[in-house]
């Protein structure tokens, strides 16, 4: 009985997880295109002239994301032989891009023109992923939104 439930949940994870991932990637690509006008410079010394700068404010964005049952199963298999776990890679990639996008959205809402000194941080929120708990990771992106005087 337990096995049947586990298999069922894995299948649900496979089907629904896949659909959700495709949908998420589509929305990420659309917003990335939309926010392309807002560049991120990953330097901490601003190259802009001091007189040109109107306002500086910190911006940030974060996402908590969790793995689905099917991917966990795949990763479990992969752990036997070692190597690249691509099912985890797409998950983290999605979350990181989403966090950066949220930071950009916040910067756009404050009329910033450029973001400098961006930092991305990853932290584990739930540890007991394989013991029935909620396993999730938080991706946080933060930087400095600068508005240029017009």
């Amino acid at each position: 009985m337990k096995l049947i439930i586990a298999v069922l949940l894995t299948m649900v994870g496979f089907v629904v997880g896949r659909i959700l991932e495709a949908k998420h990637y589509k929305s990420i690509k659309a917003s990335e295109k939309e926010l392309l006008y807002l560049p991120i410079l990953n330097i901490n010394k601003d190259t802009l002239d001091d007189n040109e700068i109107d306002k500086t404010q910190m911006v940030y964005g974060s996402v908590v994301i969790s793995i689905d049952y099917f991917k966990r199963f795949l990763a479990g298999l992969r752990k036997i032989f070692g190597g690249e776990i691509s099912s985890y890679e797409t998950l983290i990639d999605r979350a990181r891009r989403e966090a950066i996008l949220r930071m950009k959205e916040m910067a756009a809402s404050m009329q910033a023109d450029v973001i400098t000194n961006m930092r991305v941080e990853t932290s584990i929120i739930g540890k007991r992923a394989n013991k029935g708990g909620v396993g999730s990771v938080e991706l946080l992106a933060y930087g400095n939104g600068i508005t240029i005087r017009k």
Partner: protein
Amino acid sequence: MILTNIEAVPGKKIIDHFGIVAGSTVRAKHFGKDLLAGLKNIVGGELKSYTELLHDSRKQATERMIEQAKELGANAIVNIRFATSSVAQGAAELYVYGTAVKVR
């Protein structure tokens, strides 16, 4: 209050320096939300309730840091860093720290 995560405030000059200011908060997850997140865990993807929770807590930690800087008479905080650590099962600490300065 101007917050930046670079060493200076662009376009302004630092005239005084008050040392490190920090704010932190420890949050536990709501039981009902945890249950929902557990269900969401089957299909994977974003856990919106957790994102919101962490966002709110981080805001609170930042506010505490700002409060501390205000008491010192600062008008900006530079070189801000965020840190997250899970202190116990189901609880996370959010920590924000920076240097309080006076700019002109």
